[in-house]
């Protein structure tokens, strides 16, 4: 591995440790990592937007025109309309002309609503309702390939989805008191909701642990590279950088412990 690549890898591990130090408490190292991420992301986004958005979709389309009149004699002059509308968005910063920014906003929201309403209705409501109203597959009630309750197309799953959906809706129906049969159905509904939330919680835990595992993998990789005997060219340099970071980390932990003990002794006195 090249020296600069190893330095970047080391910096990655350093920033990881900075971020994870927040688990103990807020500190300047965490703040540094936090601001770095926000700054780099914003800078990266601006560059991507320029090169992937404005250049190919506006400037390149207009480049057959004459610069003198600001592209007005380009054969694709119509692209100036969205460009002007885009510029009007900046009018928000002016007290007197902020009303001008409503034009592009109105156009954007109008187009979005026009596109979204029929497609969202069709794909998120109608198709989901249709999926619940299928004929129950009695022939394959417990699964298509033998007994398999996880088979989402089995008759059992169809019944469970139908009953579960209706029960969950009943739980949110507050115009009637939740007593008797109605109350029992609502209770079943809350059980269904809790199982759903439980599944989401389990997946969320897995996701959070996955993030930690990834940083663990990178940190172990970094350690592996530092002591890789094939990196003869930098054989002394890599372990030195490794130990420098480890010592720095230990130093900070010791500093925190000493500060904590001092504070405790002051409190006890």
């Amino acid at each position, binding site marked *: 591995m090249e020296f600069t690549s190893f330095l970047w890898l080391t910096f990655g591990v350093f920033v990881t440790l900075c971020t994870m130090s927040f688990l103990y408490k807020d500190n300047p190292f965490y703040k540094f990592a936090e601001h770095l991420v926000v700054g780099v*992301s914003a800078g990266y986004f601006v560059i991507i937007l320029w090169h992937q958005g404005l250049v*190919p979709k506006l400037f390149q389309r207009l480049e057959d025109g004459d610069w003198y009149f600001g592209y007005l004699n380009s054969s694709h002059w119509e692209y100036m309309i969205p460009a002007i509308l885009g510029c009007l968005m900046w009018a928000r910063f002016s007290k007197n002309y902020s009303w001008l920014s409503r034009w592009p906003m109105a156009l954007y929201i109008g187009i979005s609503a026009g596109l979204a309403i029929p497609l969202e209705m069709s*794909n998120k409501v109608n198709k989901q309702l249709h999926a619940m109203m299928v004929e129950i597959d009695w022939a394959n009630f417990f699964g298509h390939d033998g007994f398999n309750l*996880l088979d*989402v197309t089995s008759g059992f799953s169809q019944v469970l989805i139908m009953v579960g959906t209706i029960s969950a809706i009943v739980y949110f129906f507050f115009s009637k008191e939740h007593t008797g049969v109605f109350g029992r159905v609502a209770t079943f509904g809350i059980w269904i909701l809790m199982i759903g939330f439980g599944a989401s919680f389990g997946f*969320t835990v897995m*996701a959070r642990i996955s993030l930690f595992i990834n940083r*663990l993998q990178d940190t172990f990789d970094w350690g592996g590279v530092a002591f890789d005997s094939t990196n003869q060219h930098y054989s002394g340099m890599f372990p030195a950088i490794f130990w420098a970071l480890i010592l720095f980390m230990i130093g900070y932990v010791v500093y925190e412990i000493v500060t904590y003990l001092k504070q405790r002794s002051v409190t006890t006195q």
Partner: protein
Amino acid sequence: MELFERLMKLDRRWVFLLLIIVCVWAYASSFSVPILVMPEVQSIYDKVEGLPEGSVVLVAIDYDPNNLAELHPMTYALVEQCWRKKIKTIFTALSMNGPGMCVQAIRDITDSVSRDKEYNGVMYKGREVVNGVDYCFLGYKPYYAIVILGMGQAFNQPYPTDYYGTPLDEVPMMRGIINYDQVDLVVDISGGNITDAWISYGQGRFGFDLALGLTGVMTAQYYPYLGSGQIIGIMGGLLGAAQYEKLTDNPGRAKDGMRVQLPAHLVIILFIVMGNVGFFANKWRMKREGRA
């Protein structure tokens, strides 16, 4: 202070510390955990395996570095499977930092495909993967819903050039590929609500086969689309990625990470049980003492 009260007032930092110790121990150990493949992951694998050479798969890299841990392994396993089978790939990145993820994945997978390797008993000769011939990276464009709809009419409408600035009409691979009609499968690997747009504006409007690779947090909320047939499969979180790696016989970071998940989950379950025992015991004691 009683044990149960101590449990209720346990500093959360002890939980973090124990979790870190367990994770580091598990990662440094060499045990492995069995990975059972779910039907929703199998269906994606079967679909890709069933595609003949020269087919076209669109892989939407709609995630940022914060979702890299879960979603990068999916991309690596899926794209390597496609390229080994000489399936052409179109990449899009509709997430802000997606292009960086895509460029990294293309570089690493290209490197891997250049070497001879055996998967599921089949030997694949290493070959050079060429930009514009084997794959086309379209890049990032803002307003993903409009871009998804635009690609349904013609790829060159929202993307006049590819990511590297080559006019799309001059990219050899894109000759004859006008819109989704020429695409055999769309796989959205996503860490945000771009997935909703792929379902509503993409699959719902144009009717192509759609598969999803999602972060763990998102997975549960997209299962209804599987039941309704709007998507053909879901890879959920690191587990989904590990299952796909197992199917493609291409073990990577997901399979490697699954052995850490098991003890980490056990620790969390242990703390949940301890918290509940403490809560109910405390409640019972207060009731007995007539304080509640």
